[in-house]
């Protein structure tokens, strides 16, 4: 039987959506910083640009970036505090100021190294990464290993003091810009599939690496394919032990999933859609007076409200409320990406034939973001665990239903 959602343990303190005086003081501090320094922030955080690196440095000094990274590795060294992180994100978003560099090096590799890296690895990689001087890409998925990531085939064989890597990765999003890659490779071909993988780090300028931009349905190359031919990687550039790469990678995969259904971003899009509907006219009449399209908008608003409230519940659970909110967390990626896709799709209908406009069309609305996001969110429905994988997880881990039987390899 699944954990009874009607009888979860429950909370201890009464409902209180304020963050409390300490946090409101912190919020004021962030606002002061933003009013002082915000105007000097770069509009776009171009990788490696001096103004990017300078802004990133200033953010770290004030504890708005690399907040919980220890000082010895160049971070701010604060204790983790979910509410402060949220306040920072909220205030920077409201002010329209960059809250610092993201990217898979900072969001995924650094936490991994802090947990499982050697002291030498932490020393070598964390500081330049968080400071924006070392750019990473992630080498996980392969053409033949998507939902079934653990079946990956890129192999690395020891040859003296080097791993020799051969194979192909896909969806390597910043491969063209990256200095380094963190990469899952098969090092123990005879072990069961989850136990034959290792987690390697290597430079992208190593001979034998070819990166090809991967154009997607939006018409842009948001991702790449990366090919390895006899790429020689020093033996020590491994995180964790040989064969433990699957666990190393999974120690941080969870973080990625939560972020795909960001309710603040969705709410911002809802408001943009409302504005669009007030401006857009059909036969001279504003779409905001069209009962059928407005009903679709209201349906989405109801869903977005529910997801926003769900997000508060998850936040509260992370803060230690007695409600574990397990199911509430688990459904975010599935519901959040579908909702965004539907929202962007409504905007296209709102615009009628102008909903087809793209790129340099003179009547393009909102920079074409409705059209590109409609497609991009279809990509996100698929990426990071397809909706089918999400439903497997919800039914198995969330509701306690049995797994499908495994097929033996090679059948």
């Amino acid at each position, binding site marked *: *039987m*699944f954990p*009874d*959602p*009607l009888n979860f*343990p*429950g*909370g201890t*303190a*009464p*409902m*209180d*959506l304020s963050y409390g005086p300490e*946090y409101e003081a912190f919020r004021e501090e962030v606002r002061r910083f933003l009013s002082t320094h915000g105007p000097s922030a770069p509009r776009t955080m171009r990788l490696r640009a001096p103004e990017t690196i300078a802004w990133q440095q200033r953010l770290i000094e004030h504890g708005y970036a690399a907040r919980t990274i220890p000082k010895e590795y160049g971070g701010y060294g604060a204790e983790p505090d979910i*509410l402060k992180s949220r306040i920072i994100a909220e205030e920077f978003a409201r002010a329209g100021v960059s809250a610092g560099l993201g990217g898979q090096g900072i969001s995924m590799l650094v936490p991994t190294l802090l947990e499982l890296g050697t002291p030498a690895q932490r020393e070598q990689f964390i500081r330049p990464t968080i400071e924006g001087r070392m750019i990473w890409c992630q080498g996980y998925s392969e053409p033949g290993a998507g939902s079934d990531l653990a079946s990956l085939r890129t192999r690395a064989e020891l040859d003296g003091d080097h791993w020799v890597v051969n194979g192909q990765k896909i969806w390597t999003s910043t491969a063209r810009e990256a200095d380094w890659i963190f990469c899952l490779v098969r090092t123990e071909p005879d072990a069961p599939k989850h136990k034959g993988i290792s987690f390697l780090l290597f430079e992208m300028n190593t001979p034998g690496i070819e990166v090809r931009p991967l154009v997607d349905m939006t018409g842009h190359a948001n991702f790449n394919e990366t090919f390895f031919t006899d790429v020689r990687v020093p033996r020590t550039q491994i995180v964790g032990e040989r064969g433990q790469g699957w666990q190393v990678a999974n120690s941080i995969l969870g973080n990625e999933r939560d972020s795909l259904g960001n309710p603040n971003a969705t709410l911002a899009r809802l408001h943009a859609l*409302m504005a669009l*509907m007030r401006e857009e006219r059909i036969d001279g*009449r504003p779409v*905001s*007076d069209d*009962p059928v399209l*407005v*009903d679709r*908008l*209201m*349906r989405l*608003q*109801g*869903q977005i*409200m*529910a997801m926003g*409230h*769900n997000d*508060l*519940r998850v*936040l*509260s*659970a992370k*803060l230690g*409320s*007695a*409600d574990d909110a397990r*199911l*509430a967390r688990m*459904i975010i990626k*599935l*519901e959040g990406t579908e909702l965004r896709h539907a929202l962007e799709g409504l905007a296209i209908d709102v615009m009628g034939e102008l909903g087809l406009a793209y790129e340099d069309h003179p009547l393009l609305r909102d920079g074409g973001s409705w059209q590109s996001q409609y497609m991009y969110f279809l990509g996100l429905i698929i990426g990071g665990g397809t909706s089918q994988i*999400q*439903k*497997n997880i*919800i*039914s*198995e881990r*969330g*509701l*306690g*239903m*049995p*797994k499908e*039987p495994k097929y033996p390899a090679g059948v």
Partner: protein
Amino acid sequence: MEFGLSQEQRFLRDSVQRYLSEQMPLDRVRAFADGTDSTVARAGWHGLAELGISALLLPEAAGGLGLKALDAAVVAQTFGEHVTPGPFLGTGAVAAHVLGATLPQDDPLLAELAAGKLIVGAALSETSGAREDAQITYQATGDGGVLSGRALHVLHPKAHQFIVASRAGALHLVAADAPGLTLTQTTTIDRTRPTCELRFAETPARSLSDDPALLASTLDLARVMIAADTVGAAYAMLQQAVAYAQEREQFNRPIASFQAVKHMCAEMAAALEPCQAMVWYAAHALDALPEEAHLTALHTKAHVSEVGTRVAKTATEVHGGMGFTDLLGLHYWFKRIGFNRQTLGTPDLLRRQAARAQGLLASGA
């Protein structure tokens, strides 16, 4: 920052759950629904009154517990979960809210209400899309005033008093035995919640409020309570579906191992889980966030109803033929969710109100 139920709310929920599991199991609900024991609802209400449910929303000065909408939502959800008959919506929620705000705190009616002795019905439906041109008008007379007209889909036919919304947005209190009042019981698909039609022919009534804001807050409260009831009922259906799928075998395996069945359950859970947070938030907004309360209440009842309808259908399908029969009683939850959807505003009507509340549909379409 704390989003969720407090320890007190958890105790409240657990005590109601325990009472309902022990005193109002499905066979008692059935006995009420099929007419073999019409005392079930009243007896249950008396038992619940001992737990304080009838006094929950009444001010302490009026002998109540002075609790909040969120506490009431917690209780309403357990009623949906157990398909509990009884006058909670009209009496425990609407009457406590309206009478607590309008009667002198020492009015004996309030003490009776708190004690669970006074049952109050609610005639509010004409505020949410009037049918048959039904409407109620109030006329002041020398010594009070009289109501005339007709109210459909009135909750709690066995009530002692009825709270009646007039066309002008005022609220009145009418005794069930007042002259000129005719009551006709009306059968609906949901036998756990009887309804009636009331006809008023210059029926004496006590005027409670002329303030449209009180009517509005009453409707907000009632709609959030209905949504909470639906969330409880839908969780109960999901749980039954998962449990049934794990027991039921076809093709030599539990049907819970079929990916199609798993995904049906996952889709129910994914749609329903945010409804839990939504109902908590909507109830809390009634208590503490006045600028958000109305819009949130409209959306909560609309959205939760849509999800409830889908869960009711899907959970029935997971049960296969058994879900269609009376044997498991699953249809009580199905019909409860259906009743909640239609009562005090179908989703489309509520969404239209939500749009208007935000300045959309300004042309009046």
